[in-house]
């Protein structure tokens, strides 16, 4: 039974030390998101702005600088859009919005992101 739990790693194979002396590989936001398995519940956003009027009056807009996958964007018309399909379900935006203006719930079972390492 012990053998049933396996480390998901084993990705890097040793092919000469020289291959592992270069700078660490960096990923931008999109590529970071791409490292995750995300099953999108099409048509059922689990996050919603409750009232755009409140966002319009919100000066600091902390949601736009604290989401670890940069899901909050202010559009040209001043509305705030949540690109919810990339959500990694951390809960930050729920707490950071000073006006509790985000209707926040977990994606339904079977959807959202899955960690292989964690």
């Amino acid at each position, binding site marked *: 039974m012990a053998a049933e739990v396996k*480390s998901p790693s084993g990705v890097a194979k040793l092919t000469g030390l020289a291959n592992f002396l270069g700078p660490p*590989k960096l990923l931008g936001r999109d590529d970071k998101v791409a490292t995750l398995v995300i099953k999108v519940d099409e048509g059922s956003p689990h996050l919603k702005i409750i009232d755009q009027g409140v966002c319009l009056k919100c000066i600091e807009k902390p949601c736009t600088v604290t989401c670890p996958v940069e899901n909050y964007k202010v559009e040209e018309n001043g509305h705030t859009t949540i690109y919810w399909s990339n959500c990694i379900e951390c809960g930050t935006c729920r707490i950071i919005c000073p006006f509790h203006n985000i209707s926040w719930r977990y994606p339904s079972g079977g959807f959202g992101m899955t960690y292989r390492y964690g």
Partner: protein
Amino acid sequence: MAERCDVAIVGAGPGASIAAYLLAKGGLEVIMFERGDYPGSKAMFGGVLYTTVLSKFFPDFPGAGCVERHVIEKRFSMLSESNELALSFKFLDFEPPYYNHSFTALRAVFDRYLARKAEEAGAVLITQTVVDEAIVSDGRVVGVRARREGGEVLANVVIAADGANSLIAQSAGLRGELPLSVILGVKEVVSLPREVIEDRFSLEGDEGAAYEYLGGGAVRGAMGAGFLYTNRDTISVGYGIPLGALKALGVQPDELLNEFKMHPVVRRLLRGTTPEEYSAHLIPEMTPHDLPRFVGDGIVVIGGAAGLVNANPLFHEGTNMAMASGVMAAETILQAHKAGNFSAKALEPYASRLRESFAWQDYDRYQGLTRMAETHPQFFSKYPYEFTRLARKLFSVAPTDDGMQVPKRTLELAVADHVLAELGLMSLGLDLLDVAKAAMF
């Protein structure tokens, strides 16, 4: 007719699984709900798993492949923009198989291991199922509402083991909104062949290293800390920062992670690594005032949901406290089951035992230090830079114009000057006094 069981547990993290294991062994019908595809699929931590409680129930865990490396080096360092001042503890004399009860681990692996133990004992695990709220009737919790067909499950007791966000405790009226003192943890698991890791970090076999970077150049001088832990053939690298500080910093969290990885000191340790997985999760760091009540009629709150963490630059503990609270909750529920009484009063022994245990005492002691740090931003924004600068001054080997070398006494005076001019003996003294005071309680 709604389904019925003795105990409904929300979550299948370490706290939930150990509670489910003990309850099922005690003969109770237990259902554990997990919203992810498998236990650990939505969980993330630093992380070093502290195995004191675990080893008591599952003495064979080290050989089961559920942990990565046992920690033999704890290193604390302060970074300036390009330099480092560090203090390292190496301990090679702890005995196998548990060594110092500190093992690096990956949650997608560990949580599955522990949940399987609960299942083997007879607990039912239902994955891919979100519990939306506790069902409250006449002021007492009588079950949970899961988001699926026929999702109402009635239970004598509900265990809120749903981690930092704990919407269940909130839905049962046991707590208000989370404060901005909660910490956002952001990390990447990056791969590197195990031989390279062992060589680079001076490790033999399954030995591991845990490096902590306190404030300073790790996270732009904000109140936060970076970390780097060696796994078998991956490294966990990331940082934690309170939401309030993150908001004030105004930098995208993912960019801040890249910045930390590229810090000249950190970059050298990460040469040749490839990111395998990005992740982020909250750490429920808060004042006693913001904590939930631990028991209510028909409900107990454990682990991260109860705010039980010891999260500060010195310690990053939580998994052990989750497991400890799971054990104490299960033992109390077994008693309550015998008596056939699941009122808050009957469940209260859980809360009182918790308060007598390390889980509460460590939380309580160190949250004082964290509160003190909140009012002393200089510990993060100033001292790491200044202390590193002092070390640089003292250890500079400087030539003089006449082809000789600056005498040490001159360097010492320069350091003294720097302390007086930049740090101020008075304010430094007062700050150290504040640390001492905070540590007393």
